[in-house]
């Protein structure tokens, strides 16, 4: 049965109207819970008072940014945030790649699957439980101290000494994430053309040479994309874990921008000041991800957008 043009248009409108209706909650969600807080960032330039609201509060320009940049904690926060993330980038980021390369060299499928299954597991354990386990193993009379005590090493209060914080933070992150991190590289290794390996073998290339000349170049695009994504998260990653693991004794090396925002903002209610700190954090993150993408586009033609 054919419909007249008018009827078709009306039917189209009616169908689209339902689509608009369906889009409504989603649009409302993004406007309220994502763009709402962006609007709320205005308070970084005001002296926010809940009674006067976001728009009604007084403008103070860059006062809060000034006091943050000139505050005694500024450099400590920057140093800790950057160092923890740089260490994570140097040691944590390649860990998954290395594991994927090693797993790929295992020829016994059963064993390979066994290792993979076990190595993914910690990823699903909550960060609270992981931190709780660390507290117990690393305490003054915990397992680690008992073990190193057997070699005559004096007990170390790992989580109360600021010198150990970054090492503990990064290495526990590797413990929890290495298996999960390897998945994507294993998948990308699986996509490499097998004839490349055949040809290399005929040319007499050893396994090492195959890894360096075929496998690693083959997964380079994936590595670059993952690196860009990591750069974007650089300033925010891990704050929930720092919050669980640190204490006033280790603030010196552990306090990062996001934990400082939580302490000053939520616990001490200095909203405008910490909104300014948070905005600074977001802007740096944005700059990092955009420039990582731009650099990558120029040097390797891999890009996120």
């Amino acid at each position: 049965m054919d419909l007249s043009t008018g009827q078709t248009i009306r039917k189209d409108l009616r169908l689209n109207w339902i689509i608009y209706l369906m889009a409504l909650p989603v649009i409302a969600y993004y406007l309220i819970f994502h763009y709402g807080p962006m609007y709320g960032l205005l308070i970084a330039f005001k002296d926010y008072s809940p009674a006067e609201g976001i728009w009604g509060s007084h403008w103070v320009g860059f006062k809060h940014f000034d006091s943050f940049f000139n505050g005694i904690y500024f450099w400590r926060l920057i140093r800790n945030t950057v160092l923890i993330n740089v260490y994570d980038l140097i040691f944590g980021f390649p860990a998954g790649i290395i594991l994927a390369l090693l797993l790929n060299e295992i020829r016994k499928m059963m064993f390979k699957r066994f290792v993979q299954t076990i190595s993914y597991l910690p990823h699903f354990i909550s960060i609270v439980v992981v931190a709780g386990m660390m507290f117990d193993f690393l305490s003054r009379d915990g397992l680690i101290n008992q073990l190193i005590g057997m070699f005559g090493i004096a007990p170390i209060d790992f989580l109360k000494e600021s010198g150990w914080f970054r090492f503990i933070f990064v290495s526990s992150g590797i413990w929890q994430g290495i298996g999960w991190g390897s998945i994507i590289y294993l998948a990308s290794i699986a996509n490499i053309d097998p004839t490349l390996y055949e040809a290399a073998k005929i040319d007499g290339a050893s396994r090492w040479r195959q890894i360096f000349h075929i496998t690693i170049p083959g997964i380079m695009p994936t590595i670059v994309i993952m690196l860009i994504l990591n750069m974007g998260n650089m300033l925010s990653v891990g704050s929930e874990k720092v919050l669980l693991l640190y204490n006033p004794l280790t603030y010196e090396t552990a306090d990062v921008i996001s934990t400082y925002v939580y302490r000053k903002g939520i616990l001490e209610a200095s909203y405008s000041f910490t909104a300014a700190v948070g905005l600074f954090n977001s802007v740096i993150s944005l700059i990092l991800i955009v420039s990582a993408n731009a650099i990558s586009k120029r040097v390797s033609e891999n890009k996120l957008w």
Partner: protein
Amino acid sequence: MGAQTTGEKAFSVINTLLMLLLCFITLYPFLYVLFASLSDAASFIQHRGMLLKPLGFNLDAYKAVFKNPMITSGYRNTLFYVAAGTAINLLMTALGAYVLSRRNLYFKNILMFGIVLTMVFSGGLIPSYILINKLGMMNTPWALLIPGAISTFNLIIMRTAFQAVPISLEESAKIDGAGEFTIMFRIVIPLSMPVIAVMILWYAVGHWNSYFSALVYLRDRTMYPLQLVLREILIANSTDSMSTGVAADDKYAIGETIKYATIIVSTLPIICLYPFLQKYFVKGVLIGAIKE
């Protein structure tokens, strides 16, 4: 394959040893926790070094854990947050994904841009906190369920899956008089079940493990999810309330095993389900990767 050289054999041996070491380092902490939780508190405290089996066998720690009202209410609350939260997540993400997977929708690009932008820039903690406060969601379960209703990353994955549904199917359904809701629930979603399953898992595990939003938005302890209760027991070290009625000397000892039992009780559901769910989790990562 030709004969392996000595170097390659050595590489294989070392590689296998490395992988076994990795498995040991990953698994042993869990085994230690399990053994300690089942041990007799007094002999556990005396013990030094690694545990290869429980010292004695004693379920007192577990009894104390299950008697703790905070643990039981935390468990109940978490189950509620997981169920309600995941349902909201799925509904909202599916709606968004469905709308964005429609062809010829002229505001689609603007919408997409607005959504993707939130992945690289956000208002941050404090403005969100003020917003939640203003909306009257502070100290209500809504604060844990609504603000994270859609994970943009998951939305994009789901949209990609929805776009893969053959358009001819939808067109023939339309000719038969099906509306958008019918197409979405009867055709697109059933045909995208693998992705839906992955999304359910990711969202559910996310709710099960999350503690931060509860820490920020909840004041009332009766609403605490399990992870926040765990934080008090494991990090702030407050097992006293659970060992009441025990002599002071034994309190410390049983407190130690209680911590381990708490870890087991709170982690067991995930560990038990893990072997069955693992492949879906992995599939999710791979689907997510394809979009690049």
